């Protein structure tokens, strides 16, 4: 009997000896306290994707990914104002499907979600289920944070009741009041994108230093509002991460249609355009030509688009392909971001980012320079066998609206934020597995 148990012991130890023993690093929180995390921001924080907000997009928001990792270092529950449905709210999301253009060519492109709309109950106020940890509101600007009744105004003007559905007093609350109620120990703040983006996505038709959604916000208003929100979020000395504003011209929204996208296949096409444009001295050749765009200050009110100018994703494709837009007729100015408008966008982005950096330094907070990061992503990042690029649809990072990210893109961001947190607070929070999150789904 005894010798039997010795034998069993011997066999057991033999098998134990053949088990691998290596282990990863045990996550540590460093000098930060992740027990209660609040996310401040806009659509990118809310989990907006494919041109709309829907439940699984919210579940794959980068703050929710971060909260999952924070749990490994003492983080608590993370509550989001989840929508009931998947079809997108208020408008339907985009999905990829074969689309036949006016030229008879069929290719994959974004279409409006054709499935059943499941938005019932989306506008029901759910503030009683709060407090919520994800305070991201699609469309919100930094300067909106001091507007009383913002939620109600946004709902009336834009039909989007994102804030309306989870603010306690949508008629009177300023967004900063909602932030002030948060009992957080850690926060992320990705704010300011919409103070520039609205101007750019409307083709730069708004004004610089205006307060409409198609304007670039006044720098002073941006600064005072941003600082007020940050003061609120750090009023008890809480730690957190600031995320700056990426150069929006790096987004697929401005790059899907190339400036030199006028393809002439026959000499006859070039000849007839040359004849038509001879008075303006514009020449065309077989192959790729710059599109003709509208420009009030150019002779004849039109000219060829130059390098560094952008055509918007929203430009009607059939007008380009079959309506003579960009060749016989100029592309209307609201679909073009010209050199001056690009400069306006970049200058504003630079000023806003300078201020964000200054505050991060003053308040000794972590800063994730997503603007610089997106520039490195331009050439593609390789990660666990995945190649991620900013290319529309095939790149895997940007969703079908050309502005917001896919879950995979948000995971990429989450990991970079984790790196910034670890570097600043001496924590060792593990990264998320990017390949577990969806890129663009194919039909």
């Amino acid at each position, binding site marked *: 009997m005894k010798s039997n148990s010795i034998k069993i012991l011997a066999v057991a130890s*033999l098998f134990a000896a053949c*088990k691998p023993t290596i282990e990863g690093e045990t996550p540590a929180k460093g000098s930060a306290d992740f027990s209660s995390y609040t996310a401040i921001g806009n659509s990118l924080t809310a989990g907006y994707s494919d041109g709309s907000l829907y439940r699984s997009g919210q579940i794959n928001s980068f703050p929710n990914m971060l909260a999952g990792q924070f749990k490994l270092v003492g983080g608590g529950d993370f509550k989001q104002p989840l929508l009931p449905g998947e079809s997108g709210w208020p408008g339907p999301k985009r999905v990829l499907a074969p689309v036949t253009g006016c030229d008879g060519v069929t290719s994959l492109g974004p279409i409006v979600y054709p499935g059943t709309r499941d938005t019932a109950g989306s506008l029901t106020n759910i503030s009683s289920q709060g407090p919520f940890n994800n305070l991201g509101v699609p469309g919100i600007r930094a300067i909106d944070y001091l507007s009383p009744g913002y939620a109600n105004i946004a709902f009336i003007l834009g039909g989007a009741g994102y804030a309306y559905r989870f603010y306690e007093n949508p008629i009177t609350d300023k967004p900063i009041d909602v932030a002030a109620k948060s009992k957080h120990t850690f926060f992320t703040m990705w704010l300011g994108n919409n103070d520039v983006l609205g101007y750019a996505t409307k083709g730069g038709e708004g004004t610089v230093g205006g307060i409409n959604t198609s304007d670039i916000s006044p720098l002073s208003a941006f600064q005072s509002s941003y600082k007020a929100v940050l003061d609120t979020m750090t009023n008890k000395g809480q730690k957190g991460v600031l995320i700056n504003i990426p150069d929006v011209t790096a987004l697929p929204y401005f790059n899907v249609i190339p400036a030199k996208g006028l393809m002439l296949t026959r000499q006859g096409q070039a000849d007839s355009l040359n004849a038509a444009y001879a008075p303006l001295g514009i020449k065309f050749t077989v192959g790729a030509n710059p599109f003709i765009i509208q420009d009030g200050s150019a002779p004849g009110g039109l000219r060829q688009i130059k390098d560094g100018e952008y055509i918007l994703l929203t430009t009607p494709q059939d007008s380009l392909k079959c309506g003579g837009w960009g060749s016989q007729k100029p592309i209307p100015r609201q679909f073009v971001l010209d050199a001056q408008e690009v400069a306006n966008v970049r200058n504003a982005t630079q000023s806003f980012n300078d201020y964000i950096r200054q505050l991060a330094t003053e308040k000794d907070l972590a800063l994730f320079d997503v603007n610089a990061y997106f520039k490195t992503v331009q050439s593609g990042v390789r990660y*666990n*066998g995945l190649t991620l690029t900013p290319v529309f649809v095939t790149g895997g990072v940007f969703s079908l609206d050309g502005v917001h990210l896919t879950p995979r893109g948000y995971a990429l961001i989450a990991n970079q934020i984790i790196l910034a947190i670890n570097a600043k607070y001496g924590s060792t929070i*593990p990264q998320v597995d990017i390949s577990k999150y969806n890129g663009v*789904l194919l039909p």
Partner: protein
Amino acid sequence: MRKTLFLSLAGLALSSLSHAGSFQINLQGIRQTAMGGTGVAMPWDISTVFFNPAGLSRLNGMEAYGSVFLVSPNIRYVPANGGTTYYEPEKQSSTPFAVYVGGTLKKMPKLGIGLGVYTPFGSSINWGNDWVGSLITQSISLKSIFIQPTISYAITDRISIGAGFVYGTGSVNIQRALPLQFPDGRSGQLTLDGNAHGFGFNAGVQVRATDKLDLGISFRSGVNMKVDDGTATFNAPAGVSPLFPTGNTFKTNLQLPNITTVGASYRFTPDFTLQADVVFAGWKAYDSLKFDFAKNTSAVADNSSPRMYKNTVAFRLGGHYKINSKFAVMAGGAWDPTPSDDQYVSPDAVDADRLSLSAGLTYEPVRNLNIMAVVNYTTTAGREVSYAPENFSGKYQIKSVSPGIGVSYKF
């Protein structure tokens, strides 16, 4: 339970990942394995067909031999920056085997002839479909069987030479995820499946320097295992199916290294022998793994993944003690450095410097019949590496206990 065992034996799958640098398997003889893999200097039995064909003409009569191992390595991967997360591939067992027959003829005692059928290379690892490295590899299985007719001649009482012709046959099966997702989020998948063939030779010299000291050298040529017409199956979403023509095939080749072994064997007493081998492996020939598809599209490009292997030198040491006329015991160890570069360790060929310890026993119940048993323990330290082309970093460890049994009969 019984069914599982049956399947693994019937499969004749040749998994390594636990024995000697990369996908080389060093389990071709029970006694030699028990002595740390040494065996080039003198013939212990007919398995010298593999270890050094020169030993064949030094055998006394004919012998038939069969051995089989049970190999089931344990591998763990700890991803970089992944906290306490780790991945282990599905437990797989395989049974590398060797069969030899041959020896010296009564009428021509200076001439030895023999045939060996053995499994010198193989690799099999299945990480599963959804693990963190699925886009690099989900599973890979390389199998090979070498058939080697061999001839040997004793030039003098002290010097013998031998050579064999090698025909290698094998198969390759690879699965990995495609970075294309179905509407339900599932990833596409590429399956490569094909049969491989190759030729080579081996040759050796043994010298009985003194009555106590034997010396030997053997050379096994590299074998280029070629797949000419493998099937490439792309499982991709229908929306992109024009990019993935059906009926696609691929070509590839796996350059197996040449191996040069020099060794010595010394009889301290008539019952006690110590021996040592030094093994040079020409892994440098394996610089990349290439797949050449018959039908290329914008999404199906020929593929080359760099491996950057280096030549290696391994050291082996073993001893043999004859207890009495029926029993003998053996023990040994080996240090097998990995041919892989720290920046080029792909999860489809996990490797690290290996320390291997082994012990064995032979029993001769009746004259000329030998029953042999061995157990081998191989371990690696945790190795922090990356596969740079895919930006895939982490730490690996391999451990295994592999028992083997064999039987031989002289006639």
